[in-house]
């Protein structure tokens, strides 16, 4: 079903995950239960078999909210059956620039996530669960710790979930600052206590994941949907959103908009509705120029290209970009695209784990060449080199981080070529300020260890 709203109708939020989000005390189990919480968990454990659950999840067509958009039910079904330790990892590393939805979900409604995880554990046959939360989220991790303790106390976690004899253990694991640990296999290495380097796939985590055992990895928002699907059914869930993108999405909107924040919308509403009606449109006097539709790794769309598209996985892919983590970063006309490309490249350069050459070297060179462009030291050949380096990165890396820089940088050069040419002919850039930013640079003193090159830290 395409969105039911007509063009002239104002876009409003459709809250399922965000319902009651600011209810005082929602992070406490008593309030959560008073509002109907944990009923789905009881239903899943006492009225449904794991097979029923899997079938319901697959029928819902819930797609992963962490970036790739893969069917959650299908991924859960890939785990082998049988009596062995199986793992469920919730990806709460949330470090993609522009993304902050999981933060609000965990801070304000931690039990929704825990309930979703215990349900997912039953569907996948997992007995040990972990929440890998980025180390910067102190408030959120503390909140989760308290909520997990409450859930143990109430018998929703532990050796005997709801008196069924099923065992589900849950540990909140705090990371320590490394974007790459959001990549699912790097997350597993980090959780095993190693440096967070991605692994070669296959084997996929569903077969050989944490400690070599079958492992299901899902994003916070993905798992937070489960209590609702179990409560009201797959068909109800599919009544929201589009055919290929069912459900709602918590969208993080930031940048040059009047009211940045998280808005839960039905997938398929027009982008314009999200940016103008919900986030209040441009924050300054300048008109809007372009936006990243799914975090900083998604190729930008110009306002002309993107504003009237439906916000869904399929429409963003058809437009040559992606919905990704569902984070819209908006830039107005005053933004220097060269500086923007440099910011993007610096981030991925800083976060590259250094394991493979195209990413390690490619991100480094891209930053250097964009800096030359920005400082007015570049020649036209440099721009050609930037373009060709992106081509050499794309598809040649162990994980998607390399491509995550190449895609947006390529798109910026392709769509705003005259601005790059101008930076070359006019000797630099004078858009948004360009002062040094205290990280990622070669000469900075906070690069930690003398002999340990190639660290992500």
């Amino acid at each position: 079903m395409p969105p039911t709203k007509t063009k002239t109708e104002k876009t409003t939020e459709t809250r399922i995950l965000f319902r009651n989000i600011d209810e005082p005390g929602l992070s406490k189990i008593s309030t959560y239960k008073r509002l109907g919480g944990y009923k789905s968990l009881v239903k899943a454990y006492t009225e449904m078999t794991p097979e029923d659950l899997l079938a319901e999840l697959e029928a819902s067509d819930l797609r992963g909210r962490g970036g790739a958009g893969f069917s959650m039910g299908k991924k859960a079904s890939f785990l082998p059956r049988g009596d062995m330790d199986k793992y469920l990892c919730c990806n709460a590393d949330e470090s993609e620039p522009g993304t902050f939805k999981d933060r609000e979900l965990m801070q304000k409604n931690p039990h929704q996530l825990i309930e979703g995880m215990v349900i997912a554990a039953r569907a996948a046959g997992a007995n040990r669960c972990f929440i890998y939360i980025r180390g910067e989220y102190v408030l959120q991790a503390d909140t989760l710790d308290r909520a997990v303790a409450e859930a143990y106390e109430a018998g929703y976690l532990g050796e005997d979930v709801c008196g069924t004899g099923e065992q589900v253990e849950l540990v909140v694991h705090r990371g320590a600052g490394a974007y790459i640990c959001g990549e699912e296999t790097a997350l597993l290495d980090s959780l095993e206590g190693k440096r967070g380097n991605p692994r070669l796939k296959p084997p996929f985590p569903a077969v050989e994941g944490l400690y070599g055992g079958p492992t299901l990895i899902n994003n916070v928002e993905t798992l937070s949907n489960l209590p609702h699907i179990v409560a009201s059914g797959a068909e109800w869930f599919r009544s929201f959103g589009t055919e290929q993108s069912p459900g709602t999405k918590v969208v993080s909107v930031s940048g040059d908009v009047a009211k940045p924040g998280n808005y839960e919308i039905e997938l398929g509403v027009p982008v314009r509705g999200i940016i103008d009606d919900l986030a209040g449109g441009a924050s300054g006097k300048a008109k809007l120029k372009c936006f990243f539709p799914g975090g900083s790794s998604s190729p930008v769309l110009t306002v002309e290209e993107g504003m009237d598209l439906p916000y869904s996985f399929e429409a963003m892919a058809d437009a040559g970009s992606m919905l990704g983590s569902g984070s819209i970063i908006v830039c107005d006309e005053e933004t220097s695209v060269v500086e923007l490309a440099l910011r993007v490249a610096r981030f991925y350069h800083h976060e590259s784990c250094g394991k493979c050459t195209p990413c390690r070297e490619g991100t480094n060179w891209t930053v250097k060449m964009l800096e030359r462009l920005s400082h007015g030291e570049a020649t036209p050949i440099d721009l050609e080199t930037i373009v060709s380096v992106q081509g050499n990165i794309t598809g040649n890396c162990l994980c998607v981080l390399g491509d995550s820089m190449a895609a947006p940088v390529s798109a910026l050069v392709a769509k705003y070529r005259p601005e790059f040419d101008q930076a070359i002919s006019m000797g630099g850039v004078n858009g948004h300020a360009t002062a040094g930013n205290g990280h990622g640079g070669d000469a900075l003193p906070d690069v930690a260890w003398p002999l340990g090159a190639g660290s992500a830290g």
Partner: protein
Amino acid sequence: MSAASDKAGEGMFPQEVDLERVLDERGFTPEIAEIDLDQAKTGSVGREPAPVPEPGEVEVPEKLRREIERAMAKYPEVKSASIPALWAVQREYGWCSPEGIHQAAAVLGVTPGYLQSVATFYDLFHTEPTGEHQVLVCTNISCWLRGADEMLQEMCEQAGTAPGETSEDGKLFVRGFECLGACDLAPMASIDGEYFGPLEPGEGAEAIAQLCAGEKVLPKRRLEDRGAAGGKRAGADRRTSSHPMNKTKAKPRAKKTGKA
């Protein structure tokens, strides 16, 4: 490269490299880097990696030991407690000091080198001494669009330090940081682990001054107190309100009466 290979066998580092200077540039002394300069120049370094410390021979502060052991008990494999152990070390010593890493290694049963390699991978671990207060200013896209570079500069000026450096009195460490997952607060900063924003010009300096004076920092800018952007009652929909998980009517609070 050829210079280095010519000298292979003579020493680990080519003579031309002034190791002392290289270390110094990066803020290290040979002692901290555990490098014997004479050995490095004249012969093989000749140093085996430090083995797993004997648990009985290393004195570990009681609190640190307890925290690490509690973490170890949570995981099927002990090594998973590496990051929690390093957090514990950092809480104990203010940074991941060689001494602390040695102690954690003894409790975990791994080599200090292993823990060191883990510590250097993650941005939040300090492998050199750092300031008492940690100020991380996000300078990624959304914050940059809203004046993060100026905010970082303002805070550094007030603190009397440069990005990525600790103030002379050892009180403040200020650095630019990647997206902290709070772009709705742009420009924003994480101060001793707590998030603040959106910061108006001048409020960065105010925050630093408050930190130095031991006062509460920017009470009006705490993330913790912020409501959802769309307001409290947004998003009511026929289909969501019929849904059992989504009762909107909160039970009225029991009125306090005089009775006990």
